[in-house]
């Protein structure tokens, strides 16, 4: 009996990416069924599938103690390839096939402004929250503010300005919360913020910025909006890494003496 389980586990572990296709297929089928029967089509199947993915990721993290959700369980490690940045970026670029260039040009100014507001807005909100929780030094405030931008900008800023490792870990957690909140929250509030056209999708990408949050959030609303949101979000993390340890940190440093 043990030999049989060993053989089956061996097949799973040796064929990770293929397992991932099957697992995600099952998730999408379950989500589609839940969407049609339980919510009578009110909540999109893709939104539910993403939610199921997040729940499984949490359970995987509890079970394994790792940081890659379900992919930390050996049999499901192929999910890290399928959902990793390589194939994600590949599929995002593919969604641009057939996009109307005029829409992108028309939304250019609003998209650029949304990037500036999104990055500095997240910095300021994150720093104010850190201030409310008792942090008073420019290094910690800058790092947590940067974490409120994305979970990459946080540690990059923290390392550059010399924040403590505890604060850097908190900045990563803040960025992760933002990413998960965008994936779950976007389909719920899309209609109230007018997220149904290319321009508002570009503004959404610039304001939220975190690639996983933007790509997951827009997938759950309408896949056709993805290329517009991705167009601005692609500049967010890079600009955040540029502005966090420099302009933002210097301003905080000057204010706090």
């Amino acid at each position, binding site marked *: 009996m043990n030999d049989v389980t060993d053989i089956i586990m061996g097949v799973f572990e040796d064929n990770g990416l293929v397992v991932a296709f099957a697992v995600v297929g099952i998730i999408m089928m379950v989500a589609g069924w839940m969407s049609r029967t339980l919510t009578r089509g009110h909540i999109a199947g893709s939104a539910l599938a993403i939610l199921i993915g997040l729940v499984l990721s949490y359970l995987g993290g509890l079970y394994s103690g790792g940081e890659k959700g379900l992919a930390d369980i050996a049999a499901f490690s192929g999910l890290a390839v399928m*959902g990793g940045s390589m*194939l994600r970026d590949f599929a995002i670029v593919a969604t641009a*096939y057939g996009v109307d260039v005029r829409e992108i040009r028309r939304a250019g100014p*609003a998209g650029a402004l949304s990037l500036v507001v999104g990055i500095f807005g997240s910095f300021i909100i994150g720093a104010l929250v850190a201030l409310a929780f008792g942090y008073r030094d420019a290094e910690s405030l800058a790092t947590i503010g940067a974490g409120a*931008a994305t979970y990459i900008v946080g540690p990059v800023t923290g390392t550059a300005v010399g924040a403590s490792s505890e604060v850097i870990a908190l900045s990563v*957690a803040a960025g992760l919360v933002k990413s998960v909140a965008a994936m779950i929250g976007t389909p719920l509030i899309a209609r109230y913020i007018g997220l149904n056209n290319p321009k508002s999708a570009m503004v959404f990408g610039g304001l*939220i910025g975190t690639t996983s949050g933007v790509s997951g959030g827009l997938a759950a609303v309408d896949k056709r909006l993805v290329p517009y949101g991705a167009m601005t979000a692609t500049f967010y993390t890079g600009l955040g*890494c540029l502005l966090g340890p420099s302009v933002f940190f210097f301003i905080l440093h000057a204010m706090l003496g």
Partner: protein
Amino acid sequence: MILYGTAVLAVCLLVGKALGGLLGLLVGVDADVGGVGFAMILLLFASGWMRSKGLLPKPTERGMLFWSGMYIPIVVAMAAIQNVKGALTGGPMAITAGLAATAICMALIPAIAKIGAPSEPLPPLTAAERAEED
């Protein structure tokens, strides 16, 4: 040949990411600045040029559309590998900072989207498009 479409997509992504890395170098950060955006623009030009030259037959096009169709499944896989436990165990400050930044930025969308010429809502999904997503 279906792979031609996928190969064009691949070259666009690689060139776009290289450009993003170079732009990062130029502004002095060790990060990709705009790589995916450059790749999308390259794809739009490349596919437009190929269509005008008659180099975009149906099989080639399918090599791109397949990956566009794989977008949602790939995002579901991405959701399944997020560090959700790390987000929930980050403590009240990390959760407050992340939620506040998301909520306030989302609330700003209508105001900033007013700038410039208005954009029409996308037409409802056709039956064929809906069937593709289900």
